[in-house]
């Protein structure tokens, strides 16, 4: 902040002021198409959801235009079907907990695999990095569903992994991997790994290795240098990557559906159930907005933390 005060520019003249205004106007004009698209295709549907969440479900899907907060109440509370007592909607809570847990595990796994990968790429000679980065993006060429079904071929009872393990004699009978939480975690880690590698790579790329050398000069061991110098410097990349992985995981739909066998719902599947067989659109809308609110709180927390750090520096 003190920096800024020193460099305060001289009072702008009238001409400069007008120029600045014009500049401002053209900037707004340029941003207009993007704003219109965001307005039409993101904000409006959200408003529709918000309105629907306060209506009454129609008998066969859709909504009836009658105000009701039932949708919101049943996100957290439910009446017992059999003795009518009000209690926590533990079905929703345990489904949310499963999503949260699997998303956290996925984020940690992508960190374990992603950070070394990003480090490896960023420390290659400059001309080779492009090639490695290009390899990271290769999976994006194929449709997500196709890749997920390919994973099925790997982990099924008569799949590649089981056949190899059986041949070598490590196991006597196939391991049940398909339709387990392991399968979901495995699939999501694979799918979201690039989203971790790319931001971390960007952070490592900017890292000034002279600082690491300086740390060594000051008798820091490898571990201390990593913990005290490297980690704080690439932290924004790690946090950005974690957010990019964690948030889509929370709402993941295809991977849990295909690899999890649909037996244990994830939050995305629960929302789908309300719009489909459940025929309770208000509850579905309320659940979606709840998920969004949680994500938003997490993001605001992130912005707070990182901006505070910047001030500290």
């Amino acid at each position, binding site marked *: 902040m003190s920096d800024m005060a020193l460099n305060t520019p001289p009072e702008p003249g009238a001409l400069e002021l007008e120029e600045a205004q014009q500049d401002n106007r053209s900037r707004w004009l340029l941003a207009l198409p993007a704003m219109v698209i965001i307005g039409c295709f993101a904000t409006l549907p959200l408003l529709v959801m918000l309105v629907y969440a306060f209506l009454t479900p129609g008998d066969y899907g859709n909504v009836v235009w009658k105000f009701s907060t039932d949708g919101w109440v049943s996100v957290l509370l439910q009446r017992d079907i059999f003795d009518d007592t009000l209690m926590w909607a533990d079905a*929703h809570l345990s*489904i949310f907990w499963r999503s949260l847990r699997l998303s956290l595990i996925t984020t940690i796994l992508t960190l374990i695999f992603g950070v070394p990968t990003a480090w490896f790429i960023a420390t290659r000679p400059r001309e080779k990095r492009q090639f490695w980065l290009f390899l990271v993006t290769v999976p994006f060429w194929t449709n997500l569903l196709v890749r997920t079904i390919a994973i099925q071929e790997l982990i099924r009872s008569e799949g590649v992994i089981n056949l190899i393990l059986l041949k070598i004699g490590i196991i006597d009978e196939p391991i049940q991997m398909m339709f387990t939480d392991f399968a979901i975690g495995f699939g999501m880690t694979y799918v979201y790994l690039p989203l971790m590698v790319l931001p971390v790579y960007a952070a490592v790329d900017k890292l000034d290795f002279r600082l690491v050398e300086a740390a060594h000069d000051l008798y820091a061991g490898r571990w201390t240098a990593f913990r005290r110098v490297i980690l704080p410097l690439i932290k924004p990349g790690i946090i950005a990557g974690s957010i990019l992985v964690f948030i889509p995981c929370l709402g993941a739909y295809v991977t849990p559906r295909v690899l*999890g066998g649909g037996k244990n719902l994830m939050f995305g599947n629960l929302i789908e159930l309300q719009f489909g067989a459940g025929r309770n659109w208000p509850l579905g809308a309320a659940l979606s907005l709840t998920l969004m609110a949680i994500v938003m709180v997490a993001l605001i927390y992130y912005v707070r933390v990182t901006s505070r750090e910047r001030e500290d520096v």
Partner: protein
Amino acid sequence: MKKLFAAASVLALSATGAMAQELNIYNWGNYTNPKLIEKFEAETGIKVTITDYDSNDTALAKVKAGGHGFDIVVPSATYVPIWVSEGLLEETRPDEMENFSNVDPVWIDVPWDEGRHYTVPWQWGTTGVAVNTKYYDGDIDTSAIFMDPPEELKGKINVVPEMGDVMGLAIMYYGGEPCTNDKEILKQVRDGLVEAKKSWLGMDYGNIEKFAKEDVWAGVNWNGSTFRMRLANEDIAYGYPKEGYVVWMDSVAVLKDAQNMEEAKTFQNFIMEPENAALISEFARYANGITGSEEFMPEDMKTAREINIPAELKDKGTFLPTCDPDTQALYTRIWTDLQK
């Protein structure tokens, strides 16, 4: 610029192409014989596009949302009254069509479409259990296969996530009537299902391959789908639960906001022709409700246990009625409890 112009003219051309005859069918996945469509296209010159859905509710939700562009939909019997009462179907009067005389009289005055004013039979079948007899050789004509699974099958069971069918089977297993709102029975059903689920592997559609490759050894399944599994893996057998199994029929209906109304009606009439109905069955392996189609069907369908219900189990089948919304809401709650 030239490229842009070329692209625009291609677009314009395909837009006029839409003026040519087209038909957009919205049907269950892996259910429509490509040969049937080829024959229809060859005979009528109408170009057909097929889009898949995996459950009645998906189809209903998508069409209700509007802007779908479909002409034809194939809902199950229980859902037809909903489609009609929601004003989504066109009254095409199949009963006045040329080929209607081929419809088996059993399937004309049906509760969901008295006298067939809206729909044409597509296929009918049953929901029972499929079992790989290599792993279990006990009695398979029982819902205990998934409600109280034998030790051998535990952890290898898949239940199709079709709420109506599974709730129906479970309610009948505990001696209730489908669509019951008797809390005593529903409590048993919920507790029973929740307990049974611990022995299940999955709740998923698209099982033919998973059964054939023995990822799954048993589960709730449809008869024709089980037939196709058996053709791929001869150890698989179909059981009709003696506590009660579900009989269903899917019927072809035309949507009220169809863009290609005449073509859709042509299709309804086309599939009532025995030879064409036989093509439907040849692929998906269900019976079709059109008399005279048998002689065009593959030989192996005439004796298959999946198609020909054993005499002693014939009266155990039940057509599911359409449950009222309150009961449906109860069932959804039980269903969510089951999947938590």
